[in-house]
Structure formats: structure tokens, C-alpha cells
């Protein structure tokens, strides 16, 4: 999955335009670029949390060069992913949620800021060995299960591809054992191993995709809209699997989706992203109880409720970015209550505080 | 001043000085304009808004400029590769008349003679310098060029100075009667163009409808028939059906059925048919194959389903939606068809003894005429690059989704 990123990273790093506008203390970036494996002291964004930060995005800027002009997709991202949690990332198409996931996987280079993984820098240039380590530790689940599996290789090969690449098995027997274990874990049978992807239904294919990621025993899995292409009844299976792996194997998930109802079920915390900026971040429960940002509210009311009376009577809020007046008073991403962040300026903050 | 006056002005030797000045001024202006537009910041030009500005900042203009730039590079590369490849050949045998060996007093004299011949043709010395000289020679501006060197003085011979618009050298001494290569090609090109254009038209007129029918009646009889034809053309070597057609047309002509006379006559369209049909036989299959493929792509697309749901009749869907959209990617194949008709016809021209472009190359290769081969490459490179350029720009205009920035 992460094949061509090295070249891309190196090329674009030269043009790097780093923007320092820090309200959260971070280490000197220049020093980072020279020493990579050094441990940094990352100060968690939330002062009230005792959870261990696995991934920290600090002022991360992501964009693409188009004719030598940088099109910024994510201007300044600050986000912590705690160890063992499922963090839901919700937003519309084009909001940059997939881009963030890919930057974490190093498929897309960052244009500024730093991503830390277990207090080590993982963005920008890295020694080859560390890149390999990361590929082992961070895995991905894709949206379209039929597009991400090679049609010409059988399930056994697809699942054990990662094992082969990193020689994570002692002998052939060990490899087969691991593969059949992981396929059993996702609810398929060992006889499925010799079959080819086109012989499976969409839900089964997605489970093969999950088995392929999970067999590497990663610490973090980036799940990019893993259920959007699936039928309602199959979605539940995949969601259950993700939950199972989080609980039993203590894996951390970054769950990217556009459907809040699904994200609410699966996530511990939810980050709502709009036009590349996280506008609100809170625990799933709290976000549904007390949404503060108007965009979160609009997103919440937009989710259809499977109840005719509620759905037909519900009041829909429409979000219009022009409702904010940020001309003088610039917005900041502030922790308004314990573990509840919102993007707002001072005036809005006061209004939001009243709502709590 | 009408066009004839203008062309005679530029082709005649009389106003030589003025012509050179005009040509260089025009070229310098174009170069300056390109540098200005490409290098100078777009915003400087954009500040005011008038027709000229709108023209030079039009995305299509930029796009064309870029494509022309890359086209020039392609031509340059094609020239460089053939130039240095052909230089590896042993050319003495072709260009130095070995009959003179016995007539000349000494072997040195013959060597001297041979060296001067080679020098006047532009090889035998430093290949880089000669390549640059060659590039200068083919740039279409009027210039005075030394075409023969006096073997004794090693200076340009008195009668050696010539006035040329484009100089490609002369054929080997033995065949000096026909004049310089550039004018020979200019004279031969129209013949090839005549029947080549006819062949292209035949390909389009038969190939497009065939492809459309095959797509419309997919897996029905006509589709199967067409597929069979395409496989036949692919499977049989081209030479075989060239000969089959040639024999057929020859027999017809000998039996006084003058439908497809085989004696090519530039002024008689009917005589162009025989080579055109021979050549188009394969081309029709190629065009039909691609039309069918693109049509099927479009037929199975969602907007065709939606057009059907709108209640449009099948014919209207076919012509207004499907064919229109299928033709856009095919416009590129048109230039290919034309080029292959023009150049891919070395056998056909020899077969029907047409004094054309293709047969010129055949003769040149047989006689190891380095200068002619090189000259033919110059022309074919320029013509193909121009036709691809036109096709690309046409496609960019036809398809609004193609962004001009790339």
C-alpha cells in the first residue's frame, strides 16, 4: 500500500513551506529533521486526559503541488489519537478526512508541522529502517473491497503478503497457521484461502481486507470509509469486527467516515472536520448530547433517523460558513470542557460556554 | 500582392537579402513573444483587458504553445537519432563513384575527390558541427548554401553556391539529374497526398459506420461479420492482400474493365482508387474496431441510460450522445490513419509505380542513399507531429473536460 511515498516525500520536502503558528508547545522542528529516532516530549492537547497519546498531529499542513502552486487541503491540524481508542473522523467529501489518514500512512507528504508516533517523528524524511517499521505498525482498510484486492491472487497470498514482505513467520507451517488464524478471526473458513476475491461477496471481501491488515498485528489501523460500499446488513458484521479487534487486541483505529450514525456506534471520540479544519472534537456521547459548533449540529440533524415520525418532524439545520465573523477575532481550537474541543473565537466561546 | 506574388517573392533568388532580413525578424519576434508570454509573469499581461490580452492569455493558446514546443522537441529527437544512426553506415560506396578510381591519376586524388564529395554533402567531419549545419539547412528560411566543393582547392566551387529555402542535400552523384532532395520530395508529396487522402476518406466513410453498426447490433450478425473481418486483416500479412488487390485490379484493367485503372495519373481521380482501396482495406478494420470499442464504452455509460429514461429515441441517443462522445477520443486516430496512409505505403506506391513519397524512400533504401533517407525522415517527422498536434488541439476544443493546463 505504501510504495511510492518515499520518492514523493523526498521531492516535495525540498519545497517545504513551514508555517509556525503554535499555540501548543512543540519541539524545534529543525532539530527534528536532523535526528529522527530521538524521543520527543509531546504535551497532550487535553490537559485533563491521563490516556497515552499514540499519534500526535502538531500543526500539520497537508497539500498538493499543482503547477508549482501549493493547494492546501489541511491547513493546520492538531489532533491526538490515544492508544487503544477508536477515533472517528467525520466530514463531507472533500473535507480532507481521507487526506489526513493518508498523511499518517505517509502516502501523502506533509507540507509543514510534524506527526509523532509514540513520541517519535514520523513525518518528513525518515531512515529506511524506520519507514519499514512504520509500515508494519500502521495498516489500512480501504473503502472499496473489490478494488483493493488483487483479483489474480488467491486469498492465502493476499493475506500473507505483508507477512512475506517483513518475514514475520518462522516457516511455511507457521505462516499457514497465522493465515488460517486470521481468516478464522474475521469469520471466514480455511477452505476460503485457495479461492479468489471475485468469488466472494462485498462483505466477505471487506473481511479479507481486514484480515490482511490485522495479520500484521499492527498497533494502529486507518480505516478509510470501510463500510460505505456495503449493504446495511453486512455493515454490522464489519463494524463488529472492528470493535472486536479494538477490544481483544487493543488495536487503535482511526475510523474515517461520512456517516455520523455509524461513527457514533464505533468510536470513542469523534472529530468533525470541515474544509480541512477540525471544528469539534469530543467523546462520541458528549458530541451527540451537546454539539456546539453549528456545523456539527447541521451534520447531526442531517443524519436520517430510521423512525418515520421523528424523521418527518425533525428540524434540519443548514450550515453556512458565513455565519462566523472571523475578520478580527480569529478562531482557535480550544478545549472548552474536559476532552471537548471546539473551533471558535472568543465571542463564540462565550456563547458556547452558556450552552454547556 | 496576392499569394502567388508573395510565394514567388520568397522563392526567387532576386530579393535574397530582403528575404533573409524579413525571415530573421519574423523568427526573432515569435521567439520574443514566446519568451515574454511563457517566462514573464502572467499577471503583468493580465492587468489590462483587451482583445490581444484575452487572446494570449486564453488557455487554448497556452496549451497550443506548449504542445508546439513539445512537438519541436520530438522532431529534433527524431532527426538526431536518424542522423547519427545513418552516419554509422559505410557511405563511400554510395557517394564516391568507384568508376573514377581507375580514371583518376592516383589513389590520393580519388581520396581527395571522395572527401570533397562527402564534405559538400555534409559528412565526414565533426558530426556535431555537421548536425548543427543540417539543422540550419532544414529551417525553412531562405539561405545561400554551398552544395559542392572543388576537390583541388577544397573551397566552395564557383557554381556550388545555391539558393535554398530548405536544403536536404543532393542524391548520390550517379542520380544527379533529378535535382536536390527537398524539391524532389516537394514534387512527389502531392502524389502520395492525393491517394493517401482518398484512402483516409474511404477508411472514415466505411470504417465509422461499420463500427457504429457493430456496436449498435452487438453480438448480432453484423457484429460477428465485422469481427471476422477485423481478425482476418490482423491475421493475414499486409503484403498478401496488397498483392491480392493488385492482381485483382490488374486483371480487371487487362480485361478492359476500367473501374479501377492501375496506371496512376495525378490528374485522374479514378486512378487513385486502386492504391487507396488496397491501403484502406486494413485501415477500415482498425477504425471499425476502435469505433466499436469506444461506442460500447459510451453505450454502457450511465448518461446513456439516463438519456433513454428521458425518452429519447434510440437513433437520437446513438447520434446525439453516443457517437458524439465516441468520436472525441477517436479524433486522435484520424491523424494516425492519415499518417499511415501517407507513409505506410512504400509497397503500394512501388506496386502501382506511383512517383510518391513512399516509393522515394524505397528507392533510397535500396540504393543506400543516406541523404534521401534522412530527408524523408525530416518530412515524415514534421508531418506526423503536425497532424498529431492538430488532433490534440482539436480534441482539447471538443472535450470541455480536458484542461488546457496540462
Amino acid at each position, binding site marked *: 500500500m505504501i510504495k511510492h511515498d518515499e520518492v514523493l516525500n523526498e521531492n516535495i520536502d525540498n519545497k517545504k513551506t513551514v508555517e509556525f503558528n503554535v499555540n501548543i508547545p512543540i519541539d524545534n522542528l529543525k532539530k527534528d529533521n536532523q535526528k529522527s529516532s530521538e524521543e520527543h516530549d509531546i504535551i497532550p492537547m487535553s490537559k485533563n486526559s491521563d490516556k497515552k497519546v499514540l499519534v500526535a498531529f502538531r500543526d500539520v499542513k497537508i497539500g498538493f503541488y499543482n503547477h508549482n502552486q501549493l493547494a492546501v487541503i489541511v491547513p493546520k491540524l492538531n489532533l491526538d489519537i490515544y492508544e487503544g481508542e477508536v477515533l472517528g473522523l467525520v466530514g*463531507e*467529501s472533500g473535507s480532507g478526512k481521507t487526506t489526513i489518514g493518508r498523511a499518517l500512512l505517509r502516502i501523502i507528504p506533509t507540507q509543514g508541522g510534524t506527526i509523532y508516533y509514540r513520541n517519535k517523528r514520523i513525518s518528513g524524511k525518515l531512515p529506511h529502517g524506520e519507514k519499514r517499521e512504520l509500515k508494519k505498525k500502521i495498516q489500512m482498510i480501504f473503502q472499496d473491497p473489490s478494488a483493493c484486492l488483487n483479483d489474480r491472487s488467491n486469498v492465502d497470498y493476499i493475506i500473507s503478503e505483508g507477512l512475506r514482505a517483513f518475514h514475520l513467520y518462522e516457516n511455511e507451517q507457521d505462516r499457514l497457521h497465522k493465515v488460517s488464524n486470521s481468516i478464522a478471526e474475521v469469520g471466514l473458513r480455511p477452505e476460503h484461502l485457495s479461492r479468489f476475491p471475485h468469488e466472494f*461477496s*462485498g462483505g466477505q471481501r471487506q473481511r479479507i481486507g481486514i484480515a490482511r491488515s490485522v495479520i500484521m498485528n499492527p498497533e494502529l489501523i486507518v480505516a478509510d470509509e470501510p463500510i460505505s460500499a456495503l*449493504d*446495511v*446488513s453486512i*455493515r*454490522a458484521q464489519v*463494524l*463488529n469486527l472492528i470493535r472486536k479487534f479494538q477490544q481483544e487486541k487493543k488495536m487503535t483505529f482511526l475510523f474515517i467516515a*461520512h456517516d455520523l*450514525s*455509524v461513527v*457514533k*456506534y*464505533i468510536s470513542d471520540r469523534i472529530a468533525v472536520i470541515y474544509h480541512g479544519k477540525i471544528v469539534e472534537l469530543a467523546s462520541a*456521547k458528549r458530541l*451527540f448530547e451537546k*454539539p456546539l459548533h453549528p456545523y456539527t*449540529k447541521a*451534520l*447531526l*440533524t*442531517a*443524519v*436520517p*433517523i*430510521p*423512525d*418515520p*415520525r*421523528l424523521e*418527518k*418532524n*425533525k*428540524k434540519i439545520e*443548514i450550515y453556512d460558513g458565513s455565519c462566523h465573523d472571523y475578520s478580527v477575532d480569529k478562531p482557535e481550537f480550544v478545549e472548552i470542557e474536559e476532552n471537548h474541543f471546539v473551533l471558535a473565537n472568543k465571542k463564540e466561546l462565550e456563547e458556547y460556554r452558556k450552552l454547556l | 500582392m496576392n499569394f502567388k506574388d508573395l510565394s514567388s517573392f520568397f522563392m526567387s533568388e532576386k530579393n535574397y537579402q530582403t528575404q533573409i532580413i524579413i525571415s530573421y525578424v519574423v523568427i526573432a519576434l515569435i521567439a520574443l513573444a514566446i519568451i515574454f508570454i511563457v517566462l514573464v509573469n502572467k499577471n503583468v499581461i493580465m492587468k489590462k483587458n483587451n482583445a490581444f490580452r484575452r487572446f494570449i492569455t486564453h488557455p487554448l493558446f497556452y496549451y497550443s504553445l506548449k504542445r508546439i514546443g513539445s512537438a519541436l522537441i520530438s522532431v529534433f529527437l527524431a532527426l538526431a537519432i536518424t542522423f547519427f544512426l545513418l552516419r554509422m553506415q559505410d557511405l563511400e560506396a554510395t557517394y564516391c563513384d568507384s568508376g573514377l578510381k581507375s580514371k583518376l591519376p592516383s589513389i590520393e586524388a580519388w581520396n581527395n575527390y571522395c572527401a570533397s564529395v562527402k564534405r559538400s554533402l555534409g559528412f565526414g567531419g565533426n558530426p556535431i558541427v555537421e548536425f548543427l549545419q543540417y539543422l540550419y539547412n532544414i529551417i525553412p528560411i531562405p539561405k545561400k548554401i554551398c552544395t559542392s566543393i572543388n576537390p583541388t582547392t577544397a573551397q566552395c566551387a564557383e557554381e556550388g553556391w545555391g539558393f535554398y529555402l530548405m536544403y536536404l542535400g543532393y542524391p548520390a552523384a550517379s542520380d544527379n539529374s533529378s535535382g536536390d532532395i527537398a524539391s524532389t520530395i516537394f514534387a512527389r508529396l502531392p502524389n502520395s497526398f492525393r491517394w493517401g487522402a482518398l484512402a483516409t476518406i474511404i477508411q472514415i466513410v466505411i470504417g465509422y459506420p461499420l463500427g457504429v453498426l457493430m456496436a449498435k447490433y452487438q453480438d448480432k450478425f453484423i457484429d460477428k461479420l465485422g469481427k471476422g473481418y477485423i481478425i482476418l486483416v490482423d491475421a493475414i500479412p499486409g503484403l498478401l492482400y496488397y498483392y491480392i488487390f493488385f492482381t485483382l485490379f490488374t486483371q480487371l484493367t487487362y480485361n478492359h474493365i476500367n473501374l479501377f485503372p492501375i496506371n496512376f495519373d495525378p490528374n485522374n481521380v479514378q486512378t487513385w482508387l486502386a492504391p487507396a482501396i488496397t491501403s484502406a482495406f486494413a485501415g477500415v478494420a482498425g477504425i471499425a474496431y476502435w469505433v466499436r470499442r469506444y461506442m460500447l464504452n459510451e453505450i454502457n*455509460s450511465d*448518461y446513456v*441510460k*439516463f*438519456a*433513454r*429514461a*428521458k*425518452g*429519447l*429515441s*434510440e437513433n*437520437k441517443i446513438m447520434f*446525439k*450522445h453516443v457517437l*458524439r*462522445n465516441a468520436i*472525441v477520443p477517436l479524433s486522435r486516430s484520424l491523424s494516425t490513419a492519415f499518417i499511415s496512409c501517407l507513409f505506410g505505403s512504400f509497397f503500394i506506391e512501388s506496386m502501382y509505380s506511383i512517383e510518391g513519397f513512399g516509393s522515394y524512400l524505397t528507392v533510397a533504401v535500396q540504393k543506400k542513399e543516406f541523404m534521401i533517407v534522412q530527408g524523408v525522415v525530416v518530412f515524415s517527422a514534421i508531418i506526423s507531429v503536425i497532424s498529431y498536434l492538430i488532433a490534440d488541439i482539436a480534441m482539447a476544443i*471538443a*472535450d*470541455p*473536460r480536458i484542461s488546457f493546463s496540462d
Partner: protein
Amino acid sequence: MQENDINVKTENEREIEISVKDLSVCFLSHGNKLHVIRNVSLDIYKGETIAIVGESGSGKSVFTKTFTGMLESNGYISSGTIMFQNEDLAKLKTSKDWLHIRGKKIATIFQDPMTSLNPLLRIGSQIIEVLRLHRGMNKEEAEKEAIELLRRVRIPEPEKRIHDFPFMYSGGMRQRVVIAIALACNPDVLICDEPTTALDVTVQTQILELIKDLQKEYNFTTIFITHDLGVVAGIADRVAVMYGGQIVEYGSVEDIFYRPAHPYTWALLSSLPQLADDGEALSYIHGNPPSFNEEIVGDAFAPRNKYALKIDYIQEPPMFKISDSHYAKTWLLDKRAPKVEPPKIVQNLSKKLNSMVIDNKKVGDNSD
């Protein structure tokens, strides 16, 4: 199949727009005959919104394609009738026969607005061609009408927009254009084939609102195909649940959500993530949907059904009448069948959801 014969006069005050009787559709594939729609009967009333719900492969799209004769070339109607305005649509064969129906009386909106419009034609000309064809307008009239239509679907500055190409638009805007085209001829029936599946949630609500508003304005009948039960709850008056090429349950939207009777409907509802308790695994339907390669014996859902009875594997259940508006095709409703309670989650649906809604004060009492 006599058991599919339903008394059409149940809601006798309502006029029937489309009446489908014992419809069967077959597909020929690699020499196999696949029975994709099996004896389906359904009445669609004038002016209502009926949602057809089911998984992919349930036949919901194929079923509605028969209304406009848009089946793939290897599919055909093997038996049954589709009565629409005193005409049997099942009898129409060539595309010429269909011309007076398609677009004019029955219009369709497809799932993916990104590909529904011809990328090389201007938006205006794609609307104008319909107006000229079906309403016989001249170019100027058609252009005026096109602008008016674009305004109706709330596209800003329609005068300028008609000269745009589709690629300049976002998905939501394109779907608006598609709706404008579909409504160009005041159709009697509008078939929406998953019109919002490819769109963002916020855009989805806007499009659904638009369809609802336009329906009030134009009074057309909407057939809404979807797999999203949330969308169904918002837009439908009646719901038909399809499984394995048959309608297994149909009734008013309240019947289906508050009093579901078929185990498949139960399973669909209980797999909704909105209904799960925190930390509790979601329930899901085991196994795969039936493959049409083999003849289906008995109830198609039986192999995946927790509540399956022995008879489900032997004989196909008839359509049982539950109320005047509500029918379900399951042996559980037979007098001899054991009494089975629907899953708890389905019983408490309303209460559960009510607690989730932010602004629940605005919604009245929802206990059923």
C-alpha cells in the same frame, strides 16, 4: 401463485397509478435462466411515495426498471402484467413503444449524478432536448422553460448555468440538474433509484427536501428505491421490503417501522447502528443473499432466518394480511405457527431513537 393475489380495494378511496400483478422477470446468463423477480404483485397509488427497500441483489432495481422497459438486453418479463393508465407495460417490446412512456409519463433519476449527465453537452441542451421532444417547444421556449426548471430545483443564477458543462458541478448540483430534466415533462411517476447514495449527508437532506417539495408542487407519484432505512423513514408513505426477488412485506411506513412482521424486516432494522447499545455487538444477518442460479424452494430467507420453521424450507409462504394496509409473506403469521416475539431492539425502536434526537422536544409523543 394465487396467494399473491391481493385485494386491491383495501384503500378504496385511493386511485391506483401502477398495478403490478404476478410479475416475473428472467435473465439469461451463460445459458442459465435466472429467475430474478418472482411473482411480485404491488399496487402503487396516485400521489404517494412508496419506498422499495432491500439489499443489493434483492431485485429492487430490476423491479422498477420494468416500469420503463429499461431491463438489460438479456432480461425479459416472463409473465405478469403492469397496468399503467389502461395500458399493460409488460406488453411493450420495442423502444419505440416505450417512447410515449419514458421521460414523458414515467421519469427516472439514477444513483450516480456524476455519470448521469453527458459530459460533453451543456446542461441547457440536455434539458432542452427533452422539452423539445416531449412538449414540442421551439428553441426559445425550451430555453426559457429550462431556465425556469433550473430555478425550480433551486440552482442559483440559472440563466448563466444553462451554458455550463456538467463537470463544473458538485454531485449535489448535478443531481438537481438531473431532477430538473426528469421533471421537464410533468411526469406522473418519478422513479428515484438510490438518488442520494452517492451524496454527502448534508447534501442528501437537501435533495430529499427538494424531491418532497417538488412532489407537493407537481403531484407526481414517487417510487423510491433505497437501502437506507433512515431515508425511507423520512420520505416514504408506504414501504415495500424486497428479498430474493420478492416483496416480503409491505405496508405504511409506520407499519414497517413500528409493527414489522417479517423476520427479514426485523433483521434489517436491528442491524442499524443507531439502535445499538454502547459496547454491544450489532446484530447482523448471517449468510449470503440467495443466488438465483438455483431454484429457490420455500422461503428464500429461511437459511438466514433465526425464526425459520420447517415449512419455510418446503413451501413458499403466502402473503398474509395483517391490516388493511399491511401485508407480510411469512409462515409466522399462520394460525398454526408458534407465537414469536420480534427482537427487543425492534420493539423499542421508537423509544430508543427518541433519546438520541437532539431536539426531541419538538417531536410529539412517539410511543406506539
